[in-house]
């Protein structure tokens, strides 16, 4: 059993290594013998702790300090909707909240501890060490997040297999560490031998690129959409990374080529990972998709393609879902079905999208049903179908086909389509996050129905 703190303490000296946020940095040495939790750290020992901070820098400090001491860490992503918190607190038995601001005091949690962006010397580090359970949140079909359980072993399993890390590494990521992709980089940076630069809440990409450059970032990770946005910034040349890593969305050949051209000194690789399955594999040949030779090959991760979807079995898999309403995480053979559909062309597999129809807009999930429900509120709409559309900027976008009621047809009602379109968009803007609002709306005479009377959705 080990923890982040134990690993840092065992590492051959943390001197010169730092964790950098938008407002400043903290040396790992200070972090090891200090606390960001005031006098609250000891009280949190053995508890189920919800970490709900505004800034990921304070979240990072709390996670480092509490791993190995809290019984459970529930990691709240930045965009968590407050309406879901009571259910999360009940299901995960939360008995303490760590936050960097005055958190909603209507929540029924006894202990609240403030996390500061500064560390003060600690009198003693809690000694009752335990294997902390980590709960990560992913959005579910009903909009309520699913809680996926991991532990130190499953979260760090992908790192053991990597070649020995170089010494002068400075990691940076466009991700938020409170999601699986970002958390992976957090562990890589801390368990490796370098420093780590975190993006500030709402920090413009140009400012972050300049800051990454000033800290000499050598290894930088983000989604394809993050990277496209970086390349559209006049500050893209502020960094000169040795390693560029993409994950979290399908990496197409366009972004891989653009990055190789723009950063000729860098190794450009893309990785497949999901919160449930963990890191599946890394592809470093500069091409989109992955070689068929990975499937069925011996190694740390067993890869299968069954019924068109990618399945993974490894020590990196999550332990399971928390809560009884969820199906088992793995099949009878221990494989996690990622729900990512792939197609074989020649000696390579290519990603097609999600089986469930979930649309990934710049790394954020959209359930089509949720958007359709908003569109269908318009009194002239009979039905609608929301689908993905490829985007060279955000990977995918949401678009909608809409069938009007007969009496609302422009020919009958005299209301021009352009007005309906504006009204529908207004309803969507009022009810949905921006990435869920359809980019385009097309009026169609009918929608294709599948046998069961459901809309025919195509991956």
């Amino acid at each position, binding site marked *: 059993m080990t923890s982040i703190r134990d690993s840092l303490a065992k590492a051959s000296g943390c001197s010169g290594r730092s964790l950098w946020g938008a407002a400043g940095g903290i040396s790992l040495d200070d972090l090891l013998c200090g606390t960001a939790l005031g006098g609250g750290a000891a009280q949190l020992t053995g508890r189920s702790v919800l970490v709900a901070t505004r800034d990921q820098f304070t979240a990072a400090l709390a996670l480092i300090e509490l791993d190995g001491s809290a019984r459970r860490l529930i990691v709240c992503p930045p965009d968590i909707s407050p309406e879901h918190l009571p259910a999360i607190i009940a299901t995960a038995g939360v008995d303490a909240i760590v936050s960097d601001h005055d958190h909603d005091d209507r929540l029924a949690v006894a202990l609240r501890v403030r996390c500061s962006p500064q560390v003060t010397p600690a009198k003693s580090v809690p000694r009752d060490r335990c294997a902390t359970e980590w709960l990560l949140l992913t959005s579910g079909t009903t909009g309520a997040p699913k809680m996926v359980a991991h532990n130190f072993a499953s979260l760090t399993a992908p790192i053991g297999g990597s070649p020995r890390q170089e010494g002068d590494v400075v990691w940076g990521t466009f991700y938020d560490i409170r999601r699986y992709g970002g958390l992976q980089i957090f562990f890589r940076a801390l368990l490796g031998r370098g420093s780590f630069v975190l993006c500030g809440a709402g920090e413009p990409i140009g400012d972050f690129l300049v800051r990454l450059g000033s800290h000499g970032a050598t290894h930088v990770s983000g989604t394809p959409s993050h990277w496209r946005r970086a390349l559209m910034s006049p500050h893209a040349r502020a960094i000169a990374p040795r390693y560029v890593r993409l994950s979290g969305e399908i990496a197409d*050949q366009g972004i891989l080529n*653009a990055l190789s051209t723009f950063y000729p000194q860098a190794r450009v690789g893309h990785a497949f990972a999901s919160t449930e399955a963990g890191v599946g594999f890394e592809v470093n040949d500069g091409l989109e998709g992955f070689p068929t030779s990975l499937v069925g090959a011996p190694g740390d991760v067993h890869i299968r393609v069954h019924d068109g979807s990618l399945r993974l079995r490894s020590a990196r898999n999550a332990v399971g879902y928390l809560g009884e309403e969820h199906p088992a995480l793995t099949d009878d053979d221990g494989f996690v079905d990622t729900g990512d559909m792939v197609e074989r062309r020649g000696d390579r597999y290519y990603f097609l999208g999600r089986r469930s129809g979930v649309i990934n*807009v710049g790394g954020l999930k959209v359930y089509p049903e949720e958007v359709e429900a908003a569109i269908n509120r318009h009194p002239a709409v009979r039905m609608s179908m929301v689908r993905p559309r490829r*985007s060279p*900027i955000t990977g995918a*976008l949401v*678009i909608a086909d809409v069938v009007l009621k007969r009496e609302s047809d422009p020919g009958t009602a005299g209301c021009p389509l352009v007005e309906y379109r504006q009204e529908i968009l207004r309803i969507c803007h009022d009810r949905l996050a921006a990435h869920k609002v359809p*980019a385009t709306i097309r009026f169609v005479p009918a929608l294709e129905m599948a046998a069961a009377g459901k809309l025919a959705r195509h991956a």
Partner: protein
Amino acid sequence: MSIRSTVISEVEQIAAENKKGLAPLTDQLVLLDSGLDSLAIAILVARLEETLGVDPFSESDDVSYPVTLGDFIRSYERSYENAAKHHDVDSRQPG
């Protein structure tokens, strides 16, 4: 309408829908500083494909991402001209 004015009018339309203010739309304006975020720029590219019939950023695997509004407009002018040469789109200016 010229390509330029088609692009500008879509930019203004999307800014209005998202209730976002726009910086003065000069050629030197950095797109990400225009008031449109990357999602809005993605929507702009999708709408322009419907209006102009071209998407200069998906045409090949070797694209360069636009930094300024001037870069962005020139990408469309170039793609539109190429497409017209190959009769992929109507060679007249869009209406």
